[in-house]
């Protein structure tokens, strides 16, 4: 969490920095021509994994499946285009919506930080989750490829 005022001036600076950033990709989540959230993924160039660092949906639009749809779109990109082996994410253990999305995606817990997230005057645990490419292929490979496989025999 970055502690800063949510102002256009600070966001201009953040977007300028994000555009220069070589190890992370930032998206606006859009539906019907308008923004509903943001997502950011690190894409370490030298290792086979990546981290979903931010995924936020406008609270006024919660409950419409935008978070789940965005998550699928991001993972199509990560597995089909960047050829990653694993996608990881850290979530507050009391974030039920985020946990549901991760569970539906096929992510599994590999760690738990105790009293690691502070909000609303109390600490909550932090969950460390991973989605392996094999689990993605098994659950989503038939329906969620970014593009159909290229036909064999094409060399130029």
């Amino acid at each position, binding site marked *: *969490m970055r*502690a800063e005022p949510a102002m256009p001036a600070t966001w201009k600076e953040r977007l300028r920095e994000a555009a220069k950033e070589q190890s992370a990709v930032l998206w606006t989540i859009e539906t019907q021509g308008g923004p509903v959230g943001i997502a950011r993924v690190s894409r*370490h*160039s*030298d*290792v*086979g*994994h990546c981290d979903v660092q931010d995924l936020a949906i406008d609270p006024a639009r919660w409950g419409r499946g935008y978070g789940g749809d965005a998550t699928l779109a991001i993972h199509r990109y990560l597995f089909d285009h960047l050829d990653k*082996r*694993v996608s*990881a994410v850290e979530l507050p253990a009391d974030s039920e919506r985020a946990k549901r999305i991760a569970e539906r995606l096929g992510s599994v817990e*590999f*760690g*738990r*930080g*105790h*009293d*690691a*997230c*502070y909000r609303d005057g109390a*600490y909550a645990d932090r969950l*460390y989750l*991973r989605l392996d490419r094999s689990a993605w292929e098994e659950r989503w490979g038939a329906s969620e490829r970014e593009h159909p496989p290229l036909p064999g025999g094409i060399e130029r």
Partner: protein
Amino acid sequence: MLGPRLAGRNGVELRPPTLGDQKPHLVWLAQPEVTRLWAPRHGEWTEEKAEERFKRQCESRDSANWSIAFEGETVGSTGIFDIDWVGRGGESGLFIGRHDLYGRGIASEAVRLRTRLAWSHLRLHRVHSWIALQDRGSRRANEKGGYAQIGLYRGYAYRSGAWLDDRTGEIFPERAFTPE
């Protein structure tokens, strides 16, 4: 920010880094014995970049940085990074560049000093770390310092011809704190 001078046992001391401390890092980072479990083992290891790094350490408001000295000589560095001053948490890291001094307990003492300050002055609630499971020296130093394992990220990265696992640990500095 630069951390304060902390005198330890057996010739170990944490002290505020200087620009001069950055120069031996350029040599250490090019040595396979030191970086075999690191990525990507290449970088812009120039004096100019070292100066930039030092300037960032000085200006940083969410990290505490130290050089590690052994018998008066700089042998590595450590710090607590990405400090969340609201949640009172941060991530620790440690680097011993002098591989001829591995196994002498320098890292363990540095972890002890760092954790003590994390509570006595920074009042941090929790500090966590990520360490390659196969990096026995760093792992043992953290375990001796009181870090408990809370997760294992299998196949985190490919290094030196093998897939490595990343161990994540945490410590609550208040519980580990003993006044001296």
